[in-house]
């Protein structure tokens, strides 16, 4: 090849590259709606969903925007009908749930919604070839079948009181999702549902955009365009909110503070079931001792954690149930009582050693406490807990690790864990405290064993009488005072800063996960622009 021809070739390559670059960005389209238009909203969220496919677990707790469930939660977490025309008809033995379906509902591609879509959705989720990690939540379902086009009948294997709460699960269209690989098919990124919004784009790692579904059965939403920008870094999210790029965002308490009292912006505070707790593994000689557990339970200064770590955005936690909930048992609040803690330890034979750390039968009162690397909130909680414990003579070493490192050690080492699910007390308590689930994956991480609690959990799960259930969960909370297998520390409020240009913003009681479904945008379809 001569120099000349090489130069020509190089020029061709350059030209091709430029053409490619130009082609890549010349995808024609109408100009963007001006940001800040009254009928569009852009919010910043911290977590991106893995998929938008309800069959793989997306939106299982309701509020999926693109989809509807048979039922939905309202602002106060009460069930209301959605794709079902009314609340289900429950048989006398409470093993059969019959749902009458709403008539005239269509998927956004125009296809009518019917009972076969419901049956398809539940059967696919229950199919073990479907990679759905939340399948256990539907464990009670024995069979689901259609009775004509507008009736669906669930048969349960055992009476399960909160079953109706599980039917907020979004319904997928069989004529689309049923014709492709459920785990990797195009439906996972291009979903079609019956919901108030239609997905218009999902640029992974950047944003998810929606437009209002004009034919929504609940009425066309007033916010016509809705965008969720995915911004993992808290500081960048706050920066983009300040720059006017976002209309609202979830922010940690210290950053939300910077927007306080600002004209045109409002901070919305959602109370939650989101707790931070320390697992006290039964298999550990120190943490497994009831006296140590009880001492730690009153040696920690929960209010100080709320004030200093959460900047006041939270509440002390005494169990999985937040103090503001109707399921909370009054009289189970614990006062911060360092002297009382020391007394309990003294009486149980844990005597202070030379270095101030207590010893009993040659066992030093010390154990490690793990927290998730990079999680500042958990780290702060862990350090505060260790410092409180030290004052009572218990030596807790905090260690950071990923779940891969922590999981094999959960049987003997303490972990700073988080969790919480509103809706029904059964949802997290059964998994957290049931001895049959001790060490099953991440269920009952502390391997807590208490027959009285086991019995109460079973009663709470099976009974449909509210008073009986309340009594059962009261028993659980009182047992946790007598023998705390976990030290519950705080319930954390979630803070959202939103531009004040809409009416109708509210928040629900939120779960531990705060992704797309939570925040004031849980009902963006009901917002109306301010005049």
């Amino acid at each position, binding site marked *: 090849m001569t120099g000349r021809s090489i130069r020509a070739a190089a020029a061709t390559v350059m030209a091709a590259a430029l053409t490619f670059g130009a082609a890549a960005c010349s995808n024609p389209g109408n100009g963007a709606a001006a940001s800040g238009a009254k009928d569009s909203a852009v919010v910043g969220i911290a977590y991106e969903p893995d998929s938008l496919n309800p069959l793989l677990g997306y939106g299982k707790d309701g509020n999926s925007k693109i989809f509807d469930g048979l039922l939905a939660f309202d602002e106060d977490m009460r069930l209301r009908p959605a794709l079902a025309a009314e609340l289900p008809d429950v048989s006398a033995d409470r093993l059969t749930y019959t749902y009458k379906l709403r008539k005239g509902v269509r998927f956004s591609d125009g296809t009518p919604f019917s009972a076969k879509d419901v049956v398809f959705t539940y059967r696919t989720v229950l199919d073990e070839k479907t990679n759905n990690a939340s399948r256990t939540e539907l464990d009670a379902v024995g069979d689901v079948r259609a009775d004509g086009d507008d009736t669906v009948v669930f048969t349960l294997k055992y009476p399960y009181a909160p079953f109706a709460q599980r039917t907020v699960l979004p319904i997928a269209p069989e004529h689309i999702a049923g014709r492709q*690989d459920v785990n990797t098919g195009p439906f996972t990124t291009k979903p079609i549902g019956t919901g108030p919004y239609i997905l218009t784009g999902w640029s*992974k790692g950047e944003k998810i955009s929606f437009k209002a579904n004009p034919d929504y059965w609940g009425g066309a939403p007033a916010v016509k365009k809705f965008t969720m920008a995915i911004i993992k870094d808290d500081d960048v999210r706050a920066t983009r909110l300040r720059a006017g790029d976002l209309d609202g965002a979830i922010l940690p308490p210290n950053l939300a503070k910077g927007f306080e009292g600002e004209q045109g912006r409002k901070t919305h505070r959602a109370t939650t079931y989101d707790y931070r707790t320390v697992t006290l593994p039964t298999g550990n000689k120190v943490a497994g001792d009831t006296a140590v557990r009880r001492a730690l339970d009153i040696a920690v200064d929960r209010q100080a954690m709320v004030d200093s770590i959460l900047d006041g955005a939270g509440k002390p936690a005494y169990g999985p149930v937040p103090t503001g909930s109707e399921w909370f048992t009054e009289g189970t609040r614990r006062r911060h009582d360092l002297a009382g803690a020391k007394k309990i330890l003294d009486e149980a034979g844990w005597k202070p050693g030379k270095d101030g750390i207590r010893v009993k039968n040659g066992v030093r009162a010390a154990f490690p406490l793990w927290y998730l690397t990079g999680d500042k909130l958990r780290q702060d909680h862990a350090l505060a807990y260790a410092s409180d414990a030290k004052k009572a003579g218990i030596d807790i070493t905090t260690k950071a690790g990923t779940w*891969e490192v922590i999981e094999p050690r959960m049987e003997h080492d303490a972990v700073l864990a988080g969790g919480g699910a509103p809706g029904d007390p059964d949802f*997290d308590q059964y998994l957290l405290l049931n001895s049959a689930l001790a060490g099953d994956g991440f*269920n009952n991480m502390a391997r807590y064993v208490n027959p009285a609690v086991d019995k109460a959990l079973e009663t709470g799960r099976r009974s449909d009488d509210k008073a009986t259930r309340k009594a059962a969960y009261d028993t659980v909370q009182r047992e946790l005072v007598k023998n705390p297998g976990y030290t519950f520390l705080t319930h954390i409020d979630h803070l959202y800063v939103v531009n004040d240009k809409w009416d109708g913003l509210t928040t629900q009681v939120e779960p531990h996960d705060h992704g797309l479904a939570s925040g004031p945008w849980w009902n963006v379809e009901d917002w109306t622009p301010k005049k």
Partner: protein
Amino acid sequence: MARMAGRRALLAVPVLVTVTFAVFAVAAASPFDPVKAYTGSAGLTASQENLDQIRANLGVDQPLVSRWWDWLTSALTGDLGDSSVMRQPVADVIAERIGWSALLALTAFALAIVLGTALGVLAARRRGGLLDRCVSSLAYTLEAAPAFWLGLLAIWFFALELGVLPAGGLTDTASDTVTAGQVARHLVLPAAVLGVSQLPWFFLYVRQGVGDALDEDPVRGARARGLAERTVLVGHALRSGMLPMLTLIGSRVPELITGALLVETVFSWPGIAAATVQAATSVDFPLLAALTVLATAAVLLGNLLSDLLYGLADPRVGFDG
């Protein structure tokens, strides 16, 4: 020249195959659990039975060698497999993203080369002058500055303080159509940051090369013959001064890839780099292997390109390698 390209292509095959196996081996030895990555927070409340079933469904319970062999043989038939973390075929993941990464990287590269060369020549002309001293010290500072820090700085200054450029994303956050104008506006900051982070190397090489060349006999001779200063500078000094930079172009490719990785993350740029990070931390074998092959190929091509350019610029070197 064609022979050199052909020989390099042949050599690339065993290199690429070895690299994919290494990726599988390293990923398998890593402490990350693909099932945990796949299930995310849902996995934290899932039963062991449920998790075991997903492990079997994903095929990650198979031994390392058979998993790699399955991937390799189906990749050769054009099936790159399914990405577990993205829940879609690997080919789709790459097709959706590679264009945006290429656009970003090429723009940044062009910026770094053009700006670096221009500044380098100017600085070499008056070594020790004001421009030389300013730009040189700036270049040394930039060399030490991490790209993500520059990115955050740029967001703070241009998007927040001045409010003239968007802080992130491919298009305006509120828009869901991709227009050339929007992409161009959104490209400015990430490309500038990535370009500027690469700039010092080009600048310093050109400055040194051209400076040395200006002191050499042929240039002095040209000056003595009364040729115009521009001709001397561009025709003689730059031509020989550029030689070390041509090697540099190829060797900067890996650096460009890692730089793009950080810059894409800071600016929420929907390119391939963000997918690479996710694939790695989620032990997503098919996606990780495909992306590594791509990156390796880019590096090999970069080296080939710089050798070719070198041969082109300096006939004494030739193409025999």
